[in-house]
Each structure stands twice: as structure tokens, then as C-alpha cells.
């Protein structure tokens, strides 16, 4: 007999959907109508059949390993052609754009020829636009090898999170422009480690849904990087009347 699972019941579990006791974090917005019924049915089946649970876990693992595969570092290319070509190849494979020093932007959408890339073997890359790419912590290896990178655009990247930001200190010498607009996983905790980037002149932190206090964060980041122009929220944004804004950190009770 397996350990009694919280949701095993003879009677249809009404509270199964709302088990927030151990989770502590609020769930996402509840989908409506048919989608909701479908999800309820799926949960019902998952709670009762190990096969369904195993299949769903397998599908989830497949999604995760897909992202990992896309972010594999191409050490072979790096050894043979150098870090610039390897970085450019990685970004273009993911669907982004690269700008070599003294050249025009090479975008994967507009097509590019690998031979054209090879001609830039010794030319450093000065700008990378990896917006909407599935780049993650491991994939960042390819970008951190570009020691002359001046501009990095990571807008709306779904897998760029606070951990990735903590790696950016390796580009502190050259990076002048950084854009993180719209990344769903970045919070003010990751923004705190941008203080290494003392050469940064333009920073875009607008539209970050995971930042709890956009206005206050903007002020603190401006204080932290005095020579940088910070684009983001207005200081008054997020200042609503009283009790609604007393959110966040329900998961960590500081015992008073």
C-alpha cells in the first residue's frame, strides 16, 4: 500500500483543486469553462491512475530536456572557429540576431549563410539580440565568451531568470547596453547583482511581471548604477491604495 496521498478519496474531492496548504504560493488565474473542466478531468485521472501521472511526468521531462538540448554548448565549433563564430552560431540557431564589429545585423529570420559567418572568424561581436529566444543559464556560456560585447538584448526570454543575471558580471568590462524588458522570470533579486556592470549606460527593466515593486525597484537600481540610464517603471507605478499591495513573501514567514 502506498503512502496515503492527500487527494485519495472515495468521495469526489472538492478541496483537491484548492490545496494551497503546503504550496503557499497562489496558483495562476483559473481558466474558464471547458478548459477548466478538461483540467479538472485530467487532475482527477492523475490522482487515480499511476499511468496517467507517469505519462504527464514524462511529457514534462521531455519539455525540460528540449530546452536543455537547445542550449547545449557547441564546444567543437568553439575550438575550431573561435568563440565569436560559436556565439554567433548559437544565437542564430536560437532565432536571434548578431552584429559583428563594423558590419550590419545578421538576423536568422532574414536568412544567413554559414560561409558568410566563417569569414568573420577574428571579428569580435559587439551586439547580440536574443529576444524571444529560449536561452537559459547553460546557453549563456556562449554569450559570456564574447568579451567585447557592448549591447545585449534579452527581451521576453522565457527562461532567463535571476540565476542568469548573476552570471553577467563576466561581461562587466564591455557591456554598455542591456535590455531585460518583458522577461517573466526576472525579479528584483536578480537585478541586485547588476551592480557589477559598472560600464552600463542603458538598462531597460520595463514590464517585468515578477518584480514586486516596480517603482521602488527602479529607484534602487538607479541608486545602484549612478552612471546608467534606467528605463522602466515610473516611480509612482505600483503605488496603489493600501491593503491590496501588501502582497509577496507569503512563503517565508519571518518569525516575529
Amino acid at each position, binding site marked *: 500500500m502506498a*503512502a496515503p*496521498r492527500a487527494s*485519495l478519496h472515495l468521495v469526489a474531492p472538492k478541496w483537491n483543486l484548492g490545496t494551497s496548504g503546503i504550496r503557499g504560493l497562489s496558483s495562476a488565474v483559473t481558466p474558464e469553462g471547458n478548459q477548466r473542466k478538461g483540467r479538472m478531468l485530467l*487532475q482527477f485521472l492523475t490522482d487515480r491512475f499511476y499511468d496517467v501521472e507517469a505519462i504527464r511526468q514524462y511529457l514534462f521531462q521531455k519539455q525540460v530536456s528540449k530546452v536543455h538540448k537547445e542550449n547545449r554548448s557547441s564546444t567543437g565549433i568553439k575550438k575550431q572557429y573561435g568563440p565569436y563564430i560559436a556565439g554567433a552560431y548559437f544565437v542564430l540557431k536560437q532565432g536571434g540576431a548578431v552584429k559583428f564589429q563594423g558590419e550590419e545585423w545578421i538576423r536568422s529570420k532574414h536568412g544567413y549563410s554559414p560561409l558568410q559567418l566563417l569569414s568573420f572568424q577574428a571579428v569580435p561581436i559587439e551586439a547580440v539580440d536574443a529576444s524571444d529566444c529560449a536561452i537559459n543559464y547553460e546557453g549563456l556560456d556562449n554569450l559570456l565568451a564574447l568579451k567585447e560585447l557592448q549591447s545585449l538584448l534579452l527581451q521576453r526570454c522565457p527562461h532567463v531568470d535571476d540565476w542568469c543575471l*548573476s552570471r553577467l558580471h563576466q561581461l562587466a568590462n564591455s557591456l554598455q547596453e542591456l535590455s531585460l524588458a518583458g522577461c517573466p522570470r526576472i525579479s528584483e533579486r536578480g537585478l541586485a547583482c547588476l551592480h557589477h556592470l559598472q560600464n552600463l549606460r542603458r538598462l531597460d527593466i520595463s514590464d517585468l511581471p515578477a518584480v514586486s515593486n516596480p517603482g521602488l525597484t527602479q529607484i534602487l537600481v538607479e*541608486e545602484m548604477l549612478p552612471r546608467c540610464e534606467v528605463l522602466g517603471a515610473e516611480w509612482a507605478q505600483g503605488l496603489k491604495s493600501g491593503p491590496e499591495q501588501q502582497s509577496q513573501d507569503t*512563503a517565508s*514567514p*519571518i518569525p516575529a
Partner: protein
Amino acid sequence: MFRGALWLLAGRGCVGRGLSTRSGGSTPDWTEKVSEIKKKIQSALPGGAWDPLYDTSHLPPEHSDVVIVGGGVLGLSVAYWLKRLEKPRGAIRVLVVDRDHTYSRASTGLSVGGIRQQFSLPENIQLSLFSVDFLRNINEYLAVVDDPPLDVQFNPSGYLLLASEKGAAIMENNVKVQRQEGAKVCLMSPEQLQNKFPWINTDGVALASYGLEGEGWFDPWCLLQGLRRKIQSLGVFFCQGEVTRFSTSSSRMQTSGGKEMTLKRIHEVHVKMDHSLEYQPVECALVINAAGAWSGQVAELAGIGKGPPGTLEGTKLPVEPRKRYVYFWHCPEGPGLETPFMADTSGAYFRREGLGHNYLGGCSPTEEEEPDPGNLEVDHDFFQDKVWPHLAHRVPAFQSLKVRSAWAGYYDYNTFDQNGVVGPHPLVVNMYFATGFSGHGLQQAPAVGRAVAEMVLKGQFQTIDLSSLLFSRFYLGEKVEERNII
């Protein structure tokens, strides 16, 4: 078959009752009886806890392969890795016993939550490195279908350790070892320190080491709940109760040198319920001692340390609870977002908490000033006399601060060498330890859990070699000292 018949009879009984009901007055009576009958049927069918004499659902099972004493982050981590590394799936029944399901005195929940790789012992560095990896990929390790992803609220702000003239050489050496193991740490001179963090007073600082990646602080409660949720879905049993007794059996064996030793085996663990004399003897194959600050008491129950001093039988487990205070204060002029977890030359430490210029910090007292660990009362004078002066000297802005609250927690302090104890006991052959980490248990818990699970399942450490942290070092007198204890 009997149960099926019972259900049918009860069902028929319901229907029969329903048909014969005339007056409206007896309807509420009928619904009550139906729900009662339903409850009885539920407990009788498989999946319910049916005991003909009385309800035993609160008691642990009568047999369990592994019993983990202590449900904090280390105990849960061992349970998780046991379930993850076992072959085939579902082979081992694991029971986690903790006497307080609210974790009111557990070190995990009261911890400040820091994680660093700046240790002097290579094993500690490797443990921390893996744990940081675990935290980063926590949603791949601890994903449960249909439950929201975990957010450990990691602040990658790094640790800043300061050293005076005396400690500068040791710090340089430590940083060399840390870099060799793969930690990203850099050394800073006082001038560089002043440039980077202008709010520091570098008076008396000869050298500083700053962690660039993989260091910071996170929410320990989230890790605990995430582990708990995952291992519940993997089929681990939980029980709230106190371990009061181990039933052991001994056998005399001869070593290769001809010396006679008495080896013990634990056969049963007696788990006593809260506020009652009721107890359940759980028959087990292995016991894992992850009781944190109270591991010494649990070890004594198994007879560890009962013998003439100086012998292996007489070597106690030197883990005892030590009380540490944490203070939470507000300082409007204090350092900003870039504040790392700073540990001063005097031992005082602090870190930023949130965005509102709030900070958490404290200091480890010297041996003479050790507070009485009998309760978790906070001594506010300790802050005034021992912590604030050092903080105000190092960060002048802290001269005007206001303490908002404070709490106390226990370190599972290893009085021998302040490093963890991992692995089996040489004489009590089926008791394994995962305790004694003296303040850095939380940050090494995932890696230690994996190491203990490997030891249990495969008989040796496979990924990180922790043979220098075995119990036998207490008898042999080999201290494995950790110099960077905060």
C-alpha cells in the same frame, strides 16, 4: 468478498430506509446515518485505516525499511534521494518521523537562509556547489504534476568575508582551494573594497573575499515545503511522533586483529504520539539520524557513547544544540540593493532583507558567552553589547538603526570540529548520521542527502567523497576543521 457484501447490505439498507421514510422529521436523521455508514465503509475498503478495535490512522506503519528520525531539511533531503535513487521504483518504504509538524523549533525554518561556497574544507565546497545547482534546477528535481513551480526567492548577491591582518594569509589560502574546486570567488584589497562598496569602513580590513556567483540567500521554508510535497507524491510516509526507544540486539564479533567487539543492530523504533502514552513499535532495517540539534539525544537512545571513555563504545556523538540569535532591523540610510551577505572580521554578519532598507543579522557568541539552549528566548542585550558595536564600526550608516524584531534558533553544533557527521556508525551498524553541520546544514542539505542515500543504497559515496566526515573520526581524534564558520 466480505467487504463487497457489506457494501451491498449497507446500500440496500439505505434504499430500504429511504423508501419507508414518510414524515419529513426523520429525514435529517437518515442523512446523518448515511454519512456515518459511508464513513465506516470507507474505512473498511482498501485505502482506509480500518482497525476493528480503534482508529490507528495517526500511528506510523508497523514495518518500514528506513526510518528517518527528524523531518527537517536534511531528513527530507535524505528521503527524497532515497526515493530517487532506489531501484526498482517503490522498492523501499521510507518513514519520516518528526515530533513537531509545525517546525516551531526546527533549525530549518528559523535559519537566515544563506548559501556560500567560501569554506576552507574542499568537501564543504563541493557540497555547497551541488546544492546551489540543485536550487537552481529545483523545478526539475522537485516537480509535481499539477502543482505550481517553486520559487525559492534566491538572491544571488554573494557573500563578502572580511579578514584582518591576522587572518589574511588563511583567507588567501582558502580562496585558492575554493577556486580549485570551481567556486567563483575573488579577492579584494581594501581600496577595491572601498570603491565597490563605499558604505563600508575598511579600517582594520586587510583582505576581503567576495563570491561572484552561486552565493547568496534563499527561502528555506520554500525548500522544505517543496521537498515535503515531492516526497509525499513519491510515497514517503510521515508521522508526527517522538522516538523514545530503540530495540536493539547485539552480537559479538572478532576483528581481524583478534579483538572482540560488540556490534548492535536496531530492530524496532518506538514512536510515541504527542500528548499521549500511545506508541507504535516500527520494525525497521535502517535508521537515519537527522534530528538536528537533538541528534545527540537520539544517538544516546541507541546506546552510542555508553561505555568506558576513550573506547569506541564510549565515544558519544558530539552534537548539541547551541542557541543563536537573529535580529531584524531597519536603517533608512543603510546600504542599497547591492549589499552582499557580509561577515565582518569580528564574526558579526548581516544581509539585506527585501527592498525597504531592512536587514537581518547577528553574531556567533564566543564559547564563554554561549547562551543557555533550554529555550528560544531572545537576549536583546546581546545585540546592544556584542553585535551593534561591530556593525556600526564596519558600516557607519548602522549607527542609527532600529531593531524591529528578533528570534532565536538552534545550531546542531558539532563540538568536536564544527563539521557534519555523515555515514554509518561503526558499532551500531544500521544507524546512519546526517547531522552536526553547525550552521551550514541548510545550504548543504541536498548534497548531503544524496551522499547518505548513496551510502545506504550502494554502500559507498559515489559523487562526493565524504569519508573524512564519518563518525570514526571522533574516536580516532582526527579533527576535520572548518575555519569559515559564521
